[in-house]
């Protein structure tokens, strides 16, 4: 036994898969200890905030300013407000207005802005321009106001009694705050999702729940598969016929059809993560049964089994002591595959809309489902679904690597 385990860990495939899985597992356990926000708390007003560090504006005005004289600050400021597409749009407007194209140089911010200021009038609507485009130029014009000024801005607060604005401070263009001194900073490493929830926190919790579903489904499927396979293979006869009838039936009927029908029948209210795991487990045992049965049949008439029979051991004893050790390696491999299949199945089921109904725990499939329903791919909000796909792929990849490693150890023909 110890020798086998040592050999397994010497396989590089297994080791890599194992390490990846352990790291994922550790993240899933440790992260909630450090970041204790509830995973499904709605924090943002509005949907799909891009990933980044969110610094409270109010607090940063209140923090002590540091003056840094950086040369490229104003250039960056202009570039930030005046994107290349905006520059092109301004040029288009000016050309349509009647300025000759040679006069306009979109790389020269000051020149472009001067031309714009002189010529643009929000009330003139050019012929052939859609209303949306017209409004876009009005918004652009507003955002450009004061872009070239080198003055700071005055911060004012309304007086509680008179309601008049009173100056409370000024913010110069060279003022900086140290993010560490701002009391309210929230890092949203993966932004927020369609409901305005922190994707990273949600993702970690979802991975935990999905792994749980995979483990429950895998354990159940392996247990059922193993016991039926042992029974069918060793006992044979009518028992074998009956078990094999159902096994063949389930192999041929597409599993997705069964899953859809069963989870639809369970009904929305009772479809929790645990129930879905059970359903997946109950519909995926037959591959294990088939393989175990085939192996048991080839073992059934070996000498050591016959000897055991002659010594008067009970069937249970023979199965556990003389047959199980020979199929154990296969069963471990099947178990690993069942876990990853369980995670994938949950995801597919959730995408169809038949996943767990929960308000407390996300799953990887549900996150996919939400992202798809809210059109995240079309809107280009990659942070809502790419990390989910990657986590799923990473889990299944690590599992399959472990499986390949085990396969190479137990089937020497496959080794390099």
């Amino acid at each position, binding site marked *: 036994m110890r020798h086998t385990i040592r050999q397994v860990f010497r396989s590089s495939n297994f080791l890599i898969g194992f390490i990846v899985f352990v790291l994922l597992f550790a993240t899933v356990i440790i992260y909630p200890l450090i970041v204790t926000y509830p995973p499904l708390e709605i924090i943002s007003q509005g949907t799909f905030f891009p990933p980044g560090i969110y610094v409270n504006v109010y607090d940063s005005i209140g923090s002590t300013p540091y003056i840094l004289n950086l040369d490229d600050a104003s250039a960056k400021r202009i570039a930030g407000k005046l994107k290349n597409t905006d520059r092109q749009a301004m040029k288009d407007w000016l050309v349509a207005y009647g300025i000759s194209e040679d006069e306009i140089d979109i790389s020269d911010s000051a020149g472009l802005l001067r031309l714009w200021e002189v010529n643009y009038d929000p009330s003139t609507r050019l012929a052939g321009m859609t209303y949306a485009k017209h409004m876009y130029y009005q918004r652009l014009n507003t955002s450009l106001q004061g872009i070239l000024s080198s003055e700071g801005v005055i911060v004012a607060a309304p007086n509680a009694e008179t309601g008049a604005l009173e100056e409370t401070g000024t913010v110069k263009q060279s003022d900086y705050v140290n993010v560490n001194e701002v009391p309210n900073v929230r890092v949203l490493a993966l932004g927020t999702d369609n409901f305005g929830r922190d994707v990273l926190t949600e993702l970690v919790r979802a991975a935990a729940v999905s792994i749980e579903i995979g483990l429950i489904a895998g354990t159940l499927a392996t247990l059922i598969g193993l016991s039926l396979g042992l029974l069918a293979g060793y006992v044979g006869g009518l028992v074998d016929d009956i078990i094999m009838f159902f096994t*063949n*039936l389930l*192999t*041929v*009927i*597409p*599993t*997705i*059809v*069964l899953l*859809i*029908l*069963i989870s*639809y*029948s*369970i*009904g929305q*209210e009772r479809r929790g993560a645990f129930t879905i795991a059970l359903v997946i487990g109950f519909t995926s045992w037959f591959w294990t049964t088939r393989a175990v049965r085939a192996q048991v049949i080839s073992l059934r008439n070996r000498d050591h089994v016959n000897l055991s029979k002659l010594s008067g051991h009970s069937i249970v004893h023979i199965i556990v002591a003389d047959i199980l050790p020979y199929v154990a390696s296969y069963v471990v491999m099947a178990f690993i595959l069942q876990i*990853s299949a369980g995670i*994938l199945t949950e*995801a*597919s089921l959730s*995408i*169809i*809309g*038949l996943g767990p109904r929960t308000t407390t725990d996300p799953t990887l499939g549900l996150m*996919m489902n939400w992202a*798809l329903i809210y059109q995240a*791919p*079309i809107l*280009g909000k*990659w942070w809502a*679904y*790419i990390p989910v*796909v990657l986590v*799923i*792929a990473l889990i*299944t*990849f690590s599992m*399959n*690597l472990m499986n*390949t490693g085990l396969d190479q150890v137990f089937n020497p*023909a*496959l080794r390099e």
Partner: protein
Amino acid sequence: LKGYRRYFLNKLAWFAVTFVCAFLLNFILPRLMPGDPVAGIVARMAQGATNATGVQAIYRQYTELFHTNEPMIQQFFIYVKNVFRGDFGFSFSQYPRTVADVIKSSIWWTICLQFPAIIVGWLIGNTLGALAAYIRKGFDKVLMPVSILVSNFPAFGMAVILLSIFGVTLKWFPASGGYGFDMIPNPSWKFVWSVIVHYQLPFWSIVLITIGGQAIGMRSMAIYELNEDYVKYSRFMGIKDRKIIGYVFRNAMLPQITGLALSIGTMVSGALVAEIIFSYPGLGSTILSAVTGQDYPLISGATLIITLMVLVAMFVVDILYGFIDPRIKATQLD
């Protein structure tokens, strides 16, 4: 052909039994659902209606229409009778369309998308796997990890990634639908072109997924065969390498064909989810809308059709297998 006939009949009988069981499950499972589906539609239809008797009349009419007021056994016989006439009843969520009508408009999209994709993926995958087994070295070193990675990728993951790279970021192909949203299906070149363009992303996402798994399977089968005694024996006999490889791949191919028959169900389920991601107007999207609309006649009809599709495909593969593998005939003759 005597041996074959027995093999075919055997297979046919087996698939018939399976279909009957699937049919029973199809009928029973959705009807175990708690809650009254008719009440659901009536609530939707009668939104804003203040007349209680009117609502009740609507409810009664729908109950009779869908036979939900009769005992289960009666419902079953009505169902069997209707299904054999190709009548799956009315769709709850898309009333007054019939289920048959909804399925008819989506099934061809599914068939034309999935089966070509699975076959192309299977062919490419097997060729690559065989090459990897034969060449080994560099090709194998690159192909294997890539195939493992790709085959581990969930089908929907591949679909989503292709969608976001080629559909949304690069805008090479349209990201959703089966044809341009501004078009009505008609036999013009413009429409055909639009269908072809929309076909690409779903098609290749299914092909890519299929390739990975098949390549891995074929590679290990071919390696196994290459170490067989008959290969060594043929080498000693001085038979040309090319010819030996022909034998080897023919033998390695056989389990792959059985494997194809067994995995069609899984592949179809992956492809259904891919359809949903691309909003492809096939059965996958139909099931999604049926699930959201609590539409059990449609779910049951769609799943029945999918089962039938998969069973027929498996049957065809099994029959082909019988022709390709002469041992089948031999065992049946005994």
